[in-house]
């Protein structure tokens, strides 16, 4: 028996409706507001007596007092199953490509299509027999999906033990076909449960169906030197990338989404420019994943709620992305979630909070901003599944602080909960030193946490990185001094130190995202080039004068510079490398 209500008040996307006495209304349940005969999806966000506040995910123009509201009794959920890879969804998991066929240029409201293709036949193979005892999340069969074998799980929502009553034979099934029946094996009993290829999960509830959560201690390679060497990311870790506009957040995200060494990449474009999403949508299908040789789109899901789409759906889009990520983690895969940008998400919270007339906190953000941010980032992690498989969900969230000032609430509350901070600075981007991650303010807890596995790159790797990092700080101090007293005022030793730090900056920190060779740096190359660089740093140069020092070190910098643009291991690469080595071999003489 479904529950109805009537609209009482409309204030932008916030609609208040009245329901009958004693009815059962669920917090965060989905309701449909019937506006000019079109059902608009909405979510219950507050209940006060018989008055229920809904945030509507669409434009509410045309709504009248007295219009009907249908409550669905279900929490806001996403559909999970084979066929999600390569899709472009809106914040509520509507497939945008299919909407295109139905609606033309514009997104009309009130159209909700199934998230998965319900016609497509999947080649299902059972891996369990009848009579076996199973639990939520256990694999009972599999389908082949592009690059992966996609295991089919016992519905994740089920509690207790269940027995496989029947299971279909291998063959072609659609996502809506029942492929197995389960019966309760515990005392609580209950009716039979049908298992399909697809299942639902409420987006705001974390998926905690695993044996244990592990400490993130393995590196996630992004092929961006500055991140991988100085501020590494861990599989299952979290990172925050704040930066003022124009500092290169978007390019950095695009490069990471292309070259990160993971199985699945989920991009959540949350309240950002549509143009940026378009580049991804149009370019990814043509780019090949070097690891698999298949199109990058085959491992990518895009969730796209651009800045002009309704605000309430923007709040949902991050949760949708995280839930999809958790699902693939259950399948034992490495997932990377890029959320751009969490500030827009926080602003959506702020808009709703203001309409609810809640008492505002700092900069009018709601008081619960901190706990909401923490709850989202805590859903990332590396886990050991019940079948002892390992899955991980890594999350990188960009933040767009107002005025480029990192002291604002969203940045500060995010920094409290993440493991790495890649702060982009205007100073570096103005100097065209890209990626503009500022080595003077950024940090990564994973450098210490992953020490053991990082040191497998080379002996004392972490110490070397620390040394290089310190040199950058020292070089910066010398530079400051030079600005005051001029080059004449500093000693030769300080000058050499400064020149060395500039070489590290130019050839290791800076990376050209538009150059075919330099845009991605493999693990082997990072190790080999960095060790050579550190050999140069630890080499004792002896110069007769400052002019000689500048000339020789500029020559050295140029050699390293040319080296980074040569394909790894090629003829030219070897040539430049041996030139550098020759200089370093002749002690003290350049």
């Amino acid at each position: 028996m479904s529950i109805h209500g009537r609209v009482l008040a409309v204030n932008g996307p916030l609609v208040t409706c009245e329901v009958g006495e004693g009815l059962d209304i669920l917090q965060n349940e989905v309701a449909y507001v019937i506006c000019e005969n079109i059902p608009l999806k909405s979510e219950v966000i507050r209940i006060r007596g018989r008055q229920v506040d809904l945030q509507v995910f669409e434009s509410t123009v045309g709504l009248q007092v007295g219009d009907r509201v249908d409550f669905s009794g279900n929490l806001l959920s996403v559909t999970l199953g084979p066929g999600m890879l390569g899709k472009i969804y809106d914040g509520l998991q509507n497939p945008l490509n299919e909407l295109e066929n139905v609606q033309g240029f514009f997104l009309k409201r009130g159209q909700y299509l199934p998230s998965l293709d319900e016609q497509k036949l999947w080649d299902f193979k059972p891996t369990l027999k009848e009579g076996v005892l199973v639990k939520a999340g256990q694999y009972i069969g599999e389908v082949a999906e592009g690059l992966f074998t996609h295991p089919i799980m016992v519905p994740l929502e089920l509690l207790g033990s269940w027995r496989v009553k029947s299971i279909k034979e291998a063959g072609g099934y659609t996502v809506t076909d029942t492929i197995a029946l389960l019966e309760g094996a515990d005392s609580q009993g209950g009716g039979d449960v049908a298992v399909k290829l697809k299942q639902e999960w409420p987006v705001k509830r974390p998926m905690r169906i695993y044996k244990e959560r592990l400490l993130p201690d393995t590196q996630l390679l992004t092929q961006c030197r500055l991140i991988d060497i100085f501020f590494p990311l861990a599989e299952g870790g979290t990172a925050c990338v704040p930066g003022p506009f124009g500092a290169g957040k978007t390019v950095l995200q695009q490069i990471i989404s292309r070259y990160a060494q993971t199985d699945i990449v989920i991009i959540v474009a949350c309240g950002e420019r549509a143009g940026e999403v378009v580049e991804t949508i149009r370019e990814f299908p043509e780019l090949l994943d070097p690891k698999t040789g298949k199109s990058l789109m085959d491992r990518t899901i895009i969730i796209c709620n651009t800045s002009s789409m309704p605000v309430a759906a923007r709040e949902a889009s991050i949760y949708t992305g995280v839930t999809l990520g958790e699902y693939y983690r259950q399948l034992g895969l490495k997932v990377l979630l890029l959320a751009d940008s969490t500030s827009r998400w926080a602003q959506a919270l702020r808009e709703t909070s203001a309409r609810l007339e809640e008492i505002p906190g700092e900069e009018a953000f709601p008081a619960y901003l901190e706990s909401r941010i923490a709850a989202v980032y805590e859903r990332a992690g590396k886990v050991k599944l019940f079948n002892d498989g390992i899955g991980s969900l890594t999350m990188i969230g960009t933040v767009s602080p107002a005025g480029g000032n990192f002291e604002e609430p969203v940045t500060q509350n995010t920094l409290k909960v993440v493991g790495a901070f890649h702060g982009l600075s205007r100073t570096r981007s103005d100097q065209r030193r890209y990626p503009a991650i500022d080595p003077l303010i950024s940090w990564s807890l994973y450098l210490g946490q992953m020490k053991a596995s990082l040191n497998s790159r080379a002996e004392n790797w972490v110490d070397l990185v620390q040394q290089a990092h310190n040199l950058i700080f020292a070089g910066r101090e010398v530079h400051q001094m030079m600005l005051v007293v001029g080059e004449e005022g500093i000693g030769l030793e300080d000058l050499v130190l400064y020149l060395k730090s500039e070489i590290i900056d130019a050839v290791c920190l800076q990376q050209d995202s538009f150059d075919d060779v330099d845009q991605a740096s493999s693990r082997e190359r990072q190790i080999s080039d960095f060790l050579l660089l550190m050999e140069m740093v630890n080499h004792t140069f002896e110069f007769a004068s400052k002019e000689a020092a500048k000339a020789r070190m500029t020559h050295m910098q140029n050699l390293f510079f040319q080296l980074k643009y040569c394909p790894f291991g090629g003829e030219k690469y070897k040539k430049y490398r041996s030139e550098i080595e020759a200089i370093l071999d002749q002690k003290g003489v350049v």
Partner: protein
Amino acid sequence: MIMEHSCINRIQGDIIAVPAEGIKYGELATVKSRSGLSLAQVIRLRGNDVFLQVFAGARGVSTGDTVRFLGHPMQVSFGNALLGRIFNGSGEPIHNGPTLNSLPKMSIGGPSVNPVKRVIPRGFIETRVPMVDLFNPLVESQKLPIFAAAGEPYNELLARIGMRANADVVILGGIGLKYDEYLKFRSAFENAGVISRTIMFVHTASDPVVERLLVPDMALAVAEQFGIQGKRVLVLLTDMTAFADALKEIAISMDQVPSNLGYPGSLYSDLASRYEKAVDFDGAGSITILAVTSMPGDDVTHPVPDNTGYITEGQFYLRKGVIEPFGSLSRLKQLVIGKVTRSDHGSIMNSMIRLFARSREVEQKLAMGFDKTPDDERFLKYGKLFYERFMDLRVDLGINEALDLGWKTLSECFRPDEVEIKQEFIDKFWPR
């Protein structure tokens, strides 16, 4: 059925409330008061109370005045007959001409474009302003603001671009425009003979504040329709800070909690939903937006320019009457440079900017009292030529002429081995 209501029970700022039933959210109404007839829009429903923002302002509205609901949201006429016409802030044609009642009407502020129906921008819009074309070219479907402090000639720049840009339709949205500025725009377009491809929506500073909110929506709704018909539309908006200030005023009258300097928390979304109308349709035309955002106190971290910077695809800084070469940025420029424009564009652009940066350094050095070297002389000469030939806003040059002049300028000041340009371009383009 059209009903009249005459029991206004609340007037606050430009918001009035009237008890009525069966009213739709977003619906349009007229308010008849002693100061005349004004349009109003429903912005909130609460039980039987309907809240309206009165476009002409609530001043002069009395509690006994009548409100008449029209049953549809704000609409604007559309058709080729709009070309060459001028409208006021509520969409009424001004300056004579036939009425447009026979044209079809469309709602403004429509839904957003499906991202999968967009294409990667690839068209170059030539503006004949070298600082734009040569160093930060405008790309079709781009949204670019001009950040400028009060007193900068931003409207002249906009008028210049509106006159010269190679677009099919140019739509000007004037928000809080000084009446003189409006006259200047009009005479500029008329004198240049481009008024027939121009549509102007003009809200002047003396018009009611609430009408400011309508101007970008009307301009963009019309632009969208031309875009769907395959036209390349350029929308010029000035000044978006006045638009944001109107948002602020309404939000405060509605008792909304302000977030930053009194602006509502939704400022980003409100600006974005306008700027995001810029689009390159897959298989149809395009909409390009060039907007002025005046910076109060020349402060780029002020909420309006700050939020705008996150939304738009780059920005121009107008300082001391010229477009600043440093800081100005067109994020989409690499999509057209050397691809649509001549192959030497990328190299000469970078080289010229780099050398100009050096010439600024030399100026600073000399200002600090250091000695002048012969090299410094050359850089100073280059800086002077650069200013005269490229930065001066009066310069009117096509892109290829500007490129040639760039080569000429370099060759007058430097040797080919000093400019860091690939040899193949030097061989081909260096003047002998």
